[in-house]
């Protein structure tokens, strides 16, 4: 009986130690992601030209002055989003959530490795008002996104310096197999990350608003 109790005691300690180890691993990963994210965002900002408020539409041709340079995304909204490469990885811009003091670079492609670095463009284009961005639920990425409120501001700056402003319209939970639902609908911008348990996706839907 005593020997059995000792074995169980050791097993219990191992389980507790495993839990603590996993928590430490998560905290270290989170801290590392925060440090890497800040460095990348800083470097990316240096690559982006001075920001300009994005326009909603081209003026009518009759009102179009001859000597004006219109942004490429208005002349060709279907264009691929331009990218800037840092350390061989392509970035499409920066997403900012002022209420959470977040400023994160956004990678052009969504892969498991890229997600460890920064948020990724999951689908769509900012020029077509259908972009979907996903990120890990690190506290320095989208981990606190569930605390966003309706009306909170979100901005996205592309690598050409065009700033697109959004307002949070809705928060919802989406299941992992609802890929089509995630990407369709009238939302101009969608952000998502895993719930704490990892079984669902916390999803923030945004609408485009005029630049301040």
């Amino acid at each position, binding site marked *: 009986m005593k020997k059995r109790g000792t074995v169980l005691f050791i097993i219990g300690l191992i389980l*507790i130690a495993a*839990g603590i180890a996993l928590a430490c691993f998560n905290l270290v990963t989170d801290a590392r992601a925060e440090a890497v994210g800040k460095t990348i965002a800083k470097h990316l900002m240096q690559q982006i030209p001075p920001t300009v408020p994005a326009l909603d539409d081209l003026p009518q041709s009759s009102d179009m002055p001859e000597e004006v340079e219109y942004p490429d995304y208005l002349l060709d909204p279907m264009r691929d989003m331009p990218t800037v490469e840092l350390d061989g990885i392509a970035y499409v811009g920066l997403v900012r959530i002022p209420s959470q003091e977040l400023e994160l670079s956004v990678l052009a492609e969504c892969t498991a490795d890229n997600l460890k670095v920064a948020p990724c463009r999951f689908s769509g284009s900012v020029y077509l008002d259908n972009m979907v961005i996903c990120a890990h639920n690190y506290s320095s990425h989208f981990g606190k996104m569930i605390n966003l409120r309706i009306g909170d501001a979100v901005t996205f700056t592309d690598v050409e310096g065009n700033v697109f402003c959004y307002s949070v319209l809705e928060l919802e939970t989406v299941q992992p197999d609802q890929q089509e639902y995630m990407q369709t609908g009238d939302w101009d911008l969608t952000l998502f990350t895993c719930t704490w348990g990892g079984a669902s996706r916390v999803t923030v839907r945004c609408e485009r608003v005029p630049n301040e």
Partner: protein
Amino acid sequence: MKKWTKLFFTALSALLLLNSLSLQSFAADKIDTAQEASLTICYVHEEQPLSDAEFNLYRVADVSADVQFTVDEAIASYPVDFENMDEDRWAVLANTLQGYVEKDALMPSASGKTDTAGRLVIQNLKPGLYLVLGTRVTVGISVYSAVPFLICIPSADNSTGEWNYDPVAYPKTTVNEVPPVPEKTTVKVLMIWNDKGSESKRPAQISVQLLCDGEPYSTVTLSKENHWSYIWNDLDKDHSWNVIEIAIENYKVEQTKDGITFCLTNTYTGTPPAKPDPPHNPLPQTGLLWWPVPALVGAGIMVVVIALVLRKRSVK
């Protein structure tokens, strides 16, 4: 050499913009291709006649008696699309052709200058489709430029239902002031791809020429690296600037201008591949594994408690 019939009706639509003809009751006979025709150009800006302006006519296509068009061999070699034309695309086609015609210094079929009343009559024209290009003319401090246009001769006269072998055209005009000192200007080119599903067919890079008064001035290479665009700064504003691309296989080009930007839209002419079914992958896993932490710790504590109870009982 291409033949196309639909062009006829849209050519008339283009003409409609120029001389207010309507197509609705058009019911003309066959075209007499042997009959000589003329074109009268009235070049007037806000009731002010623009004299001494030179206009060149380039023959784009022959027309047959039963209104079949055959594109001129030199024109047919350019990477432009004559199919599925509509009213808007005629102006784009005229703009696009202008660059190639000027760059290759094609000989005009006819030319002349406007008189003091801003009027020019060009006679002895063979029936066909013509591209009309005007040169810039300076009056006082203003520089007038005629917008290029395409015109079908003869054209349909709606009032009589007959072919009009002597149509009258009123070119659209743009006007800029002559600066007291030579000013600089900026020209930008942006490549637009209209090839959804066939992106793999795009060339990795493409050459674009900047033309100064129709002469090659600079050649640049556009690619994904420069986001398919380029800007030329400090260009003399006194000259006429245009942009053309070097032809690429399986693509047709259209040129439009918005502000300082020449947009070259390349449309894929090959057969697009079958649309693949959208993937049904689940959404990516975007979470740290937090849920096992309380589970492990909780289970560990329970096991330790059980172990302590067992040990206590064994001591008793």
